[in-house]
């Protein structure tokens, strides 16, 4: 067609998104932006890399398991099943809260965003506190220095807890940012942290499942 326009949209109609400085403008411009933000993509790349790292850990777990028939080795207590599963299940619900927060922010609803983030934060902190206490408790019965099983077990669990901790710091930072109102920059941040948490929750589920598979 002869009146072909590069990129499909004439310049005056393209949203200058970074100009949004309050909830209303954010809602309007975010609505007209038809794509995830660059920040979202950046976080997606980070998440892809982290998921691959955990994939490697899990691959190593099964490689070691299949090169040693005694798994877990005699003398090492088998991981507990019920409590971890319940708590991970609770943590997983924060994916919902985070996503709702992201959607609220996209509609420019500052207070809803803050409230949902606080809810998520409460659950996440609760989980981490329990997880760390449990981690230290287990160290009394068996240590990473006992055997390859202990090494990979505690490395996987520890790495997962670290990711939960980083996620909590991110949410705290978001809330601190949102004290000074909503901007497009902060909307992008909320959306990015949301997918980070989706990934972390998924990883926590998978890691727990992998570690429990030793009991089968």
């Amino acid at each position, binding site marked *: 067609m002869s*009146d*072909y*326009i*590069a*990129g*499909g*949209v*004439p*310049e*005056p109609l*393209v*949203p*200058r*998104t*970074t*100009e*949004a*400085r309050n909830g209303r403008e954010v809602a309007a*411009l975010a609505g007209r*932006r*038809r*794509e995830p933000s*660059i920040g979202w*993509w*950046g976080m997606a*790349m*980070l998440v*892809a*890399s*982290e998921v*691959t*790292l955990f*994939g*490697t*850990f899990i691959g*190593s777990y099964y*490689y*070691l398991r299949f*090169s*040693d028939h*005694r798994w877990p*080795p005699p003398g090492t207590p088998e991981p507990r099943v019920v409590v971890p599963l319940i708590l991970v299940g609770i943590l997983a619900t924060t994916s919902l809260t985070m996503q709702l927060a992201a959607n609220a922010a996209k509609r420019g609803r500052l207070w809803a965003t803050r409230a949902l983030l606080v809810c998520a934060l409460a659950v996440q902190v609760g989980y981490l506190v329990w997880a760390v206490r449990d981690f230290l408790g287990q160290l009394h019965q068996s240590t*990473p*220095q*006992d*055997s*390859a*099983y*202990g*090494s*990979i077990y505690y*490395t996987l669990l520890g790495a997962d807890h670290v990711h939960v901790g980083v996620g909590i*710091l991110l949410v705290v*930072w978001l809330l601190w*940012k949102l004290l000074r109102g909503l*901007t*497009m*920059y*902060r909307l992008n941040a909320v959306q990015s942290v949301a997918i980070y948490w989706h990934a972390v929750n998924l990883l926590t589920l998978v890691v727990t499942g992998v570690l429990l598979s030793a009991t089968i």
Partner: protein
Amino acid sequence: MATTAPPPSASADEVLERLERMWQARPGVLGWVTTTDHKRIGLLYFWTTLVLFAAGGAEALTIRTQLIQPNQSVVSPSTFDELFTMHGLTMIFFFIIPMTTGAFGNYLLPLMLGARDMAFPRMNALSYWVFLASGIFIYTSLFLGMAPNAGWFNYVPLSNAQFDPGHAIDFYCLGIIFNGISSSLTAANFIVTILKMRAPGMSFNRMPLFCFAFLAASFGLLFALPSLTADTIFLFLDRNVGTHFFDVAKGGSVLLWQHLFWIFGHPEVYILIVPAFGIATEIIPAFTQRRVVAFPLVAVAELLVVFIGFGVWAHHMFATGMPTVTVVFFAAATAIVVIPSTIQVFAWCMTFITGNARFKTPLLFIAGFIFMFVAGGLTGIMFLAVPFDQQVTDTYFVVAHFHYIIFGAAVFPIFGGMYFWFPKVTGKMYFELPGQISFWIIFVGTNLLFFPMHIVGLEGMTRRVYTYPSGLGWGPSNLAETIGSYITTVGIVLLLGNLVVSWFRGLPAGPDPWHGATLEWTIPSPPPEYNFAVIPKVSSAYPNWDYADRVEDRRKLAEAAMVLEQGHEQPVTSPIDGWWAEIVEMPHDSPWPILLALAMSLVFVLLLLHLWVGAVFALSGVALALLGWHGKEPQEA
């Protein structure tokens, strides 16, 4: 176009002058330290990697001198082990990757995509400073006389605390992880830049092949590095915390190291050469004045070679005694990973033939690259024959093979690219005759250096021996190799000398000396800070040859349309079809990247000194730097 009518009161000169003001960098050193300009960062990468290339080259020359004839003792065995380990680490992690992705990619990607900067300019600066810090970190070990000495693939148990006490391998583990952070950031940055920052209208089928290559290499880095990171973390824990990942007595496995290492290590090979393919696919059209034949196949080949490359790792482990039924899976993938390369080779050759080839220096280097790459590739195909691989692996035959690939197929295009884009970067033209001479010296030198390695390898000379007995007939070949290494050095010195002299004495080159195909040739040389005064219209993968579009851009400049001069503005498009999604404000230069890199260096130094608590406290420094980084939002700038 009526739809992009200019704002009433703006002439071209006002617009350009406003862009200048908007984008101009801080003066002096401060400008370089705090820069987020992809061109400046590219140049920083370029100079740094050249220095490290010199270091790696010096190591190689010492190695060759030690091996010039039987039973030499130029260096002690322990020094020799450190030299070949550092040579491998340097050339792979501190020369080729940062030179291709860091220098060429940073400088050229935004220019080819019609963008004004990378997707994450400050993260881009961070990548550089972290890379610099990791380079200093690992070379400190050499000056402290405790350099890594277990080979670049560092097999356990030779590299565990029992057989290699001291800090050498800790330097290796931490240095690799530190450098990996830089590479991962660069990779993520490139992927998002290529997917989101293309000029509006540059749908995937209109993207230059150079960008396909860097997309492939970036995905390779992003998904391969975690495996190496995990591996080095395990080893560091085994050495310093007392875990048993690789301790057979406690249920560990030594082959776990090899699997994890090569899951990274083989894609790594393609990460090294695919950007070089990209450079070749830019130089060939420019000097044949013809599009690359079979564009879609070449594009997909660049992606496929990396993708299939993830499935061949175990062919580095055929001699470890795996069951045949599992080995064949990797042999089959090894067989087919060849095909994308044959596709590209024949596409290049047909472009040479059907086009109007002008054999200037850059094209000479590409022709040499094709020859070396085919030679190295054909010996590579032989490794799919499991029994033959088991015969020659760990011998100089393999050394010959991968030097033909890494020097021939990765470094030749880098040299060609240096000549090709020299006019764009400096605005000066290099001297042609010395350029061509430098090519022939390097070409003869490298073949004399690497070809005899095939022969000694078949004659049974193994890798990583610091000396060899006389009476096995290895003397003449080794002598030839050493002479070849000296000749190659002369050629490289001539090449760099030519560029340095041309920088001061060269004739002005003008914006487009080659009638190049891609967008970087549509703008002045050297490019202005804002790259493009008018966001260019793109309707094919060779936009500089779409005359009508370039005329339209010039008209738009006169009308001050499509200029986006209200700030550090940059169009963002949809990932596949390049529909225009938004206009964003890009960050200005910032001191935080270098401060963050310093904080991270402190963490790694403390880890090296086993000051665990201190390292944890130093992490708070990292957090503070990140807070400062995100303190000021773009719209507040």
